């Protein structure tokens, strides 16, 4: 029985379920909350079964419609895709539970179709095996995300959404032009085929530049991060969580895939070092800016800018030979998604409770909203990289990689980054314990909103205890094999 269940085409369902759910919730507005929750639960179940399938049978291949590449679209899932899918499903569930309480009755019917559509597009992206499908899914995600960002209905929200839209479209176009060049140069859009055919020609380098630039813009790596803080801060809290936790990771995933399979084997190392340098600057700049903020959501948004820098630092270390850094990439991406979404949900709770998110006036939130404060503290522990958390494990791997490579500059950046991160996290926590001079009216928060935040933060901590299992699953299909070296 179990064997049969495992062989069902879960990957297809991962895309179909949320799409159907989006349509149903659009057509049935009054029940949109329930439809949404049911759909997201199905997504999580599907990911679980897909995981069993991959653990049992290895990498998952499926040709849609039986066509097969290069004309048809293939679905492909290895350990890395699985990790991303799981991340989406878990964060998705937490955010969905939260959203049922956060949005009013007239907002919900507009939220759920867009959000479920984003999930469908994200799943499709993580399951894709060719670079043009990446473009399509990137655009789908981008347009839906922009619409979600504009939910705020304020001047800042519309302007932030507009800036985000322009940036994301620019990024997609740069990426597309790169795809065009790759197709023209090597005759395929399928990743596996391209990795065999690619050679170090000017066309490849032009494509590499364009694609990397486009993806870096979408992932908001310094200095192309200008659109992120306003977009992530002015969106409603569940949307901010989705943006910071999932959507920036989607373009990073594509970046990883293309560099691992196509560009990496052909590159000398100078370009990767540049990414590492930009990542280092992002860590310092983002953390420093976060420290300066007076409003909580902007602080969290700048924290995302910094954390993305860590991802690229790890990438650069890994490409220059420290294979343990891939573990860091995996861990940092996954735990950041969980912890950052928890943080944004906390900010939503604080806004809901007190009507504002000024850090100086948090006024003993620790006493009024203990669950929320604990959620923030736990998420903060993971983001800073304090033990015992998933973030600590990620930081450990990163430090190990930097020390093995004797990259003392990166070591220093990592440590200074931790200190700055601790500074801005504890700035918030300390005000949560302190009495403020400005009292404010308070609204009671539905319990599931607080618990969603806490459970996501707790998951980030829990990841710190299962590194061996997680890493062995991620290794299925050897996604991080570079030039024949398997980590």
């Amino acid at each position, binding site marked *: 029985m179990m064997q049969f269940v495992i062989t069902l085409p879960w990957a297809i369902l991962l895309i179909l379920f949320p799409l159907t759910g989006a349509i149903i919730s659009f057509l049935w507005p009054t029940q949109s909350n329930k439809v949404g929750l049911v759909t997201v639960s199905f997504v999580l179940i599907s990911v679980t079964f897909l995981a069993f399938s991959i653990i049992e049978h290895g990498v998952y291949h499926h040709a849609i419609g039986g066509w097969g590449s290069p004309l048809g679209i293939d679905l492909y899932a290895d350990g890395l895709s699985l990790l991303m899918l799981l991340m989406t499903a878990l964060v998705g569930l937490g955010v969905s539970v939260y959203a049922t309480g956060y949005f009013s009755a007239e907002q919900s019917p507009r939220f759920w179709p867009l959000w479920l559509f984003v999930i469908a597009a994200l799943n499709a992206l993580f399951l894709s095996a060719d670079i043009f499908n990446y473009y399509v899914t990137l655009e789908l995600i981008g347009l839906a995300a922009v619409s979600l960002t504009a939910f705020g209905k304020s001047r800042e929200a519309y302007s932030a959404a507009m800036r985000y839209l322009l940036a994301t479209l620019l990024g997609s176009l740069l990426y597309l032009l790169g795809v065009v060049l790759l197709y023209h140069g090597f005759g395929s859009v399928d990743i596996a085929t391209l990795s065999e055919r690619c050679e170090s020609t000017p066309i490849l380098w032009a494509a590499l530049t364009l694609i990397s630039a486009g993806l870096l813009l979408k992932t908001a790596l310094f200095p192309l991060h200008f659109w992120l803080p306003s977009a992530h801060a002015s969106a409603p809290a569940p949307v901010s969580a989705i943006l910071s936790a999932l959507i920036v990771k989607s373009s990073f995933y594509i970046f990883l895939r293309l560099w691992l399979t196509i560009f990496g084997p052909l590159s000398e190392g100078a370009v990767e070092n540049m990414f590492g340098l930009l990542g280092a600057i992002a860590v310092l700049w983002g953390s420093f800016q976060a420290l300066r903020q007076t409003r909580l959501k902007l602080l969290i948004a700048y924290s995302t800018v910094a954390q993305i820098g860590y991802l690229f630092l790890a990438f650069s270390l890994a490409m220059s030979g420290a294979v343990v850094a891939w573990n860091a990439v995996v861990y940092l991406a996954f735990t950041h998604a969980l912890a950052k979404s928890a943080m944004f949900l906390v900010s939503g709770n604080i806004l809901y409770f007190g009507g504002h998110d000024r850090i100086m006036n948090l006024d003993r939130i620790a006493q009024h909203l*203990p669950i929320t404060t604990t959620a923030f503290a736990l998420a903060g522990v993971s983001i800073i990289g*304090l033990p015992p958390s998933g973030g600590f494990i990620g930081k*450990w791997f990163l430090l190990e990689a930097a020390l093995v490579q004797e990259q003392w500059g990166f070591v220093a950046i990592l440590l200074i980054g931790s*200190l700055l991160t601790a500074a801005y996290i504890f700035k918030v926590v300390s005000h949560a*314990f*302190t009495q403020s001079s400005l009292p404010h009216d308070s609204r009671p928060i539905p319990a599931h909103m607080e618990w969603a935040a806490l459970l996501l933060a707790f998951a980030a901590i829990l990841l710190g205890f299962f*590194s061996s299992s997680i890493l062995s699953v991620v290794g299925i299909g050897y996604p991080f094999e570079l030039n024949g070296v398997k980590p």
Partner: protein
Amino acid sequence: MNWDTLIPFFVIMSSFLPALMIFALAEERRGLRITLNLIGVFVTLALVVFMFIGVYQGHHYETRLSLLPDLDMVLRAGPLALLFAALSSVLWLLTTVYAIGYLEGSPHRSRFFGFFSLCITATIGVSFSGNLITFLIFYEMLTLVAYPLIVHRGTEEARLAGQTYLLYTIFGGTLLLLGTVWLYTLTGTLEFTPRGFIDDVGEEHYFALVSIFILLIAGFGVKAALVPLHGWLPRAMIAPAPVSALLHAVAVVKAGAFGIVRVIYEVFGVEKAALLGLTQPLAVLAAITIIYGSVMALFQDDLKRRLAYSTVSQVSYIILGVAIVGPIATIGGVVHLVHQGVMKITLFFCAGNLAETLGIHKISEMNGVGRRMPLTMTAFTIGALGMIGIPPIAGFVSKWYLGLGALEADQEWVILILIGSSLLNAGYFLPILYRAWFLPTPDKWPDEHDLGPNETSLMLLIPPLITALLALGFGLLAASPYSPLEWVKLISRREFY
């Protein structure tokens, strides 16, 4: 089912689970909260005693949990671990009783006792850590869970004190992490081994080893209040007295000292550390701290601050004992872990009594208080005399062994430091005693409360009396087979022979 592998885990849970349950309790459920707390205390104590007996009989208690692909979290019950754990659990019992009395009627007690229990969880974890990464994890956990206790009062002043605390401790934690990972890349293991595990690291890594040592010592030195990393400790006195008593006299500060002991004995190995030229500078730094702390204490009028600087000074005795390479000095240093803990907690309990009952915060307000609160001041006197090093109180035993150890290791200058600091100790403790016993009482105390028919509430009175008796007992009965001194001699033997 091999119970031996689960006992260390249960010890951790015996304070962790009550903490979680206490968090969930409403403020008013006083009885249930006290019950849960005391159950946790007694179960922890019982398990520690159980392990004591078991280790004597040859049992091996070890819990392992895979953390990273090649690195485990390890909890192991060895003699040093049991010593520290026993100290922490007994003092936790006494401080819990004290805290219940002290915080009667204060707000946010569920939060307080919850984090209090978590501090114990972290301290027990630190004691039983079997390798450097487990130690690091519990050590950082201690940093985090002690924070809400420091900022408990919710004032801006408390927030700033907490900020200073975090600044120092997180910085120390970062140094620790760097040292640990670096060491791991060189040795491939982090298991605490008597005489150290850096044997296989080659000559070419000399610079790395020295740097790692400095990083680890600095990281631990922040909590152990080693000059110049001690700045957070006097500021942290803003916390309620039970917090100052347990954490700053016992848990947090001792965890730092304990870390240094572990690093020197079971990471580097004391003889290898001496070979690398690392122990002498550390001894000098410890000596500087001893003198500096005592000098600063002379100038403090606030009682808790004077005690804080005294702690800064006294903890470095432990470090000094460890840094002078020799078995007798080791005994002196490690046994001071226990002795100083017991004496200092007595002093802080008494300070808390004076503040709660009479509103006394400054030494200048203490005239004649010995007549008003004789039992409290007797306990204080015992603690103070022990700090100075007057026999037969425990402090004398530690200083005696330190002095003997210095002679044995050809470090005669240490004796000068010992004498000098004892004189300074007398300089800042004896005037207090004089004031308390021999000066006339003022007409009115700063802020008197009626706490019962005895000089103060029984829950505030009994704990310091018990700890004072322990201080006296550890000194008088030091030669008996069950004293801390005998236990420490066993530990020293394992390291040197």
